């Protein structure tokens, strides 16, 4: 850090903002290091509030991983809440990283995690508050290197113009490779950032957007993605994976916030990937293949994490916890911990078809919360289209068992606007919910708990990159509203509570999920018009987005509501995530004829992931 950059003073602001503990940066297990000149300073930026960011497992992993290296100091930065932002801007003080209050512009790297398309404007806001030029082309040698990663980086094109480097895939190994390379290259005489970017582009999993240019057809579709003269020997843009999770870095301690956050507990990541092949699900495709942690490893991890945090609750993380091969043994172990140390256990993402009554009874000994099920669609036909592989009986039996066990609070998740959906499928949601209701009422009064509450939530289907539905259209805003109102009018029972997502946010999310590089300008325009915290209903302003698209001569229809043909070049086609495009097409074709594909353990459907990405020779 250069001498003239001083830490940002905030003591006089803390009593003027809500929850000042968000800005202290001295939580249990936070890193504080003596700063020296050879240290690489990395600011891990989460483009949302403290409460959301602190609940994010990836941040916890990378933060501790980096801070375990002697010559790297990783600090955190979150989107400040509006009250703090206003004070900082009024006082003309730059945004800072929490641990040392150092202004962002003094860092070597600022790493943003792309969790959600609607947090992109917050990225621009953080850069702006940090007094860092937003566009990559405008940044100078002394500005930090902006590095992006996370799930949305599988199609990073809409935000590509703001990034120096984009990481494709899992970050645990690649982040150290990138920083070590930076250390090496920076020592050379006449160091220039471009030298580093060129060298970094040779690391597998690193994408340098400025090394590529995109040409378009007159109708707006992509004609070609080509390397520019800046580009070097790009090694093929393949995602990075950690093959053996038992050997992968996992912190034995995590940050413990002072204030309540979304997930204020120990999170134990039990496996990555998913054996199911739901056709709408991006996570299920991009995180392939399935890699489980061993039971022994998880037991050690659980013990260390609880010991080092003092948390009173532990929760399992994965895309589908009940698919973990040793789930029963794991839960028995956790229950044992519970009985001696009073640790609560929570088990999200259970599936309906292998929902075990015994398991639930075990967990129930600890704490009885609500149960959540996700049938996703209301009719068997549509569940076959999306390959959800869940039958009505599964749901009804599970619901009945839950009611018998004394549960009276059930949540049901559905999507509307799935490909081929008709009004019959929408009404199918209603029918299914009422069948669940009848399961409750069919039990004798003394066998069920009173005060039944069924919460039905629908979100709007957003087609995502690298899924079998990546070519499909998203339904129009009017259509979203019409389908929501059908449910609003039919789910009127007093025990049923119907929630739905604002369709307008889904439309903008849809545009950025499958957008191309021209959307960087729209994003900038929307930000200039005042858009930020777009994922929050009270901040999101659809009219500003509409205006941004208009002023940049772009179109929401083109990105959100347009069906693509198989021969169109998609903005993310130059990346390789291991799953073949032919497999995605085949799955899309099977959806059209309502044919299901069994899960990966029952029958390998040759998606391609194990041919190029693991040493296991095609076996998952």
């Amino acid at each position, binding site marked *: 850090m250069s001498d003239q950059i001083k830490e940002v003073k905030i003591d006089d602001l803390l009593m003027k903002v809500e929850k*000042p*503990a968000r800005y*202290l940066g001295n939580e249990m297990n936070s890193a504080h290091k003596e700063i020296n000149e050879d240290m690489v300073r990395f600011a891990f930026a989460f483009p949302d509030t403290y409460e959301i960011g602190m609940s994010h497992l990836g941040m916890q992993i990378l933060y501790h991983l980096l801070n375990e290296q002697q010559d790297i100091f990783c600090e955190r930065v979150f989107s400040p809440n509006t009250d703090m932002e206003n004070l900082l801007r009024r006082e003309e003080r730059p945004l800072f990283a929490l641990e040392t209050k150092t202004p962002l512009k003094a860092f070597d790297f600022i790493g943003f995690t792309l969790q959600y398309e609607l947090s992109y404007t917050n990225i621009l806001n953080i850069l702006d508050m940090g007094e860092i030029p937003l566009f990559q082309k405008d940044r100078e040698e002394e500005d930090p290197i902006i590095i992006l990663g996370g799930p949305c980086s599988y199609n990073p094109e809409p935000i590509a113009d703001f990034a120096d480097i984009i990481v494709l895939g899992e970050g645990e190994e690649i982040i150290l490779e990138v920083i070590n390379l930076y250390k090496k290259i920076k020592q050379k005489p006449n160091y220039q950032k471009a030298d580093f970017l060129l060298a970094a582009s040779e690391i597998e999993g690193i994408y340098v957007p400025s090394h590529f240019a995109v040409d378009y057809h007159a109708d707006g579709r992509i004609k070609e993605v080509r390397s520019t003269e800046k580009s070097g020997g790009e090694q093929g843009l393949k995602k990075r994976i950690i093959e053996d999770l038992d050997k992968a870095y996992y912190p034995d301690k995590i940050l413990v916030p002072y204030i309540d956050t979304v997930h204020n507990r120990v999170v134990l990541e039990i496996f990555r990937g998913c054996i199911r092949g739901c056709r709408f699900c991006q996570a299920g495709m991009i995180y392939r293949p399935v890699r489980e942690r061993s039971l022994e490893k998880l037991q050690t991890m659980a013990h260390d994490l609880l010991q080092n945090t*003092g948390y009173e609750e532990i929760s399992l993380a994965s895309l589908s916890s009940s698919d973990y091969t040793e789930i029963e043994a794991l839960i028995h172990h956790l229950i044992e911990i519970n009985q001696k140390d009073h640790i609560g256990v929570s088990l999200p993402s259970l599936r309906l078809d292998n929902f075990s009554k015994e398991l639930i009874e075990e967990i129930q000994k600890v704490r009885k919360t609500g149960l959540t099920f996700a049938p996703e669609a209301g009719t068997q036909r549509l569940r076959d289209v999306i390959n959800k592989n869940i039958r009505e009986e599964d749901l009804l039996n599970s619901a009945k068992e839950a009611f018998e066990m004394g549960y009276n609070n059930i949540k049901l998740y559905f999507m509307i606007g799935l490909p081929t959906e008709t009004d019959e499928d929408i009404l199918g949601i209603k029918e299914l919910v009422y069948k669940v209701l009848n399961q409750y009422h069919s039990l004798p009064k003394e066998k069920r708990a009173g005060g039944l509450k069924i919460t039905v939530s629908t979100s709007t289907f957003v087609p995502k990159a690298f899924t079998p539905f990546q070519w499909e259209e998203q339904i129009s805003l009017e259509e979203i509203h019409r389908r929501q109102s059908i449910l609003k009018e039919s789910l009127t029972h007093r025990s049923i509570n119907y929630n739905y997502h604002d369709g307008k946010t889904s439309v903008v999310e849809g545009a950025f999920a499958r957008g191309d590089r021209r959307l960087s300008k729209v994003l900038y325009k929307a930000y200039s018009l005042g858009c930020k915290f777009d994922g929050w209903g009270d901040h999101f302003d659809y009219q500003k987005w509409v205006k941004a698209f208009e002023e940049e001569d772009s179109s929401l229809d083109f990105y959100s509501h347009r069906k693509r043909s198989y021969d169109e070049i998609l903005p993310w086609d130059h990346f390789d995530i291991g799953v073949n495009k032919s497999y995605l097409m085949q799955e899309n074709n099977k959806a059209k004829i309502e044919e299901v594909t069994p899960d990966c353990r029952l029958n390998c459907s040759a998606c391609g992931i194990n041919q190029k990405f693991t040493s296991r020779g095609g076996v998952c």
Partner: protein
Amino acid sequence: MAMLRGKFSKTGDMKYISHLDLVRLFHRVLRRAGINIAYTQGFNPHPIISFATALSLGVESYGEYFDLKLNEEMSFTEFQQSVNQHMPRGIKILDGKYIDSKEDSLMSMVEYSDYLIAVEFIDENWDRELFEQWVAGFLEEERIMITRKKKKKRRQRHQEYKEVDVRPLIKELTLESVRGEKWSLYTLLTTGSKGNLKPEDLIKLFEKYLKNQEQNREKENPIEITSVEITRKDLYQEVNGAMKNLIDAV
């Protein structure tokens, strides 16, 4: 089973931690320190620990108290050392002893608390004598009225307010020191179920009084307090006419 009463400080950054968050912080630190704490029975067991009285956000303190039930008695020094090792900077166990579990709860014992209130004023250079006169004048007021929210009754829509005279709750108020721009007041206030006045309210009332004085004197610059820093010194119970802190009182 053993009941441990502890005294701790809450200073520096930790003054920004709310009472609820402080309680949770204690739970987690005690677990990390491996203290054999007793838990409540029932569905959702939690550590048996209680605190004397909540401190407002932004107020530092050298006299906070807790009662903690342990399954097994351990030496207080050992307890203090291992807990302090796991506490964030700013929270420190200062003192403690084992008490009879039949003792009154901390919450019902506390009657008084004392504070240092450092204030800065806008544009004023007062001499000490004048300021002391004002303090005396303030205390000579027959009544010092404050508006408080009434407890809402069930199904009541609008908040109702009442006027309360808090003069009897101010036991002491003196000018402690003057250091540059900072004027430090010392005050002893009634605290707890038998009457309660917060130092931040006291200082607002004093400011209001000063403003009235100003008007009387028709000065040009209005008096305005620009910053207030409050430190709680200790919590007390009156035992045979003497102020005893909550450890000495048992």
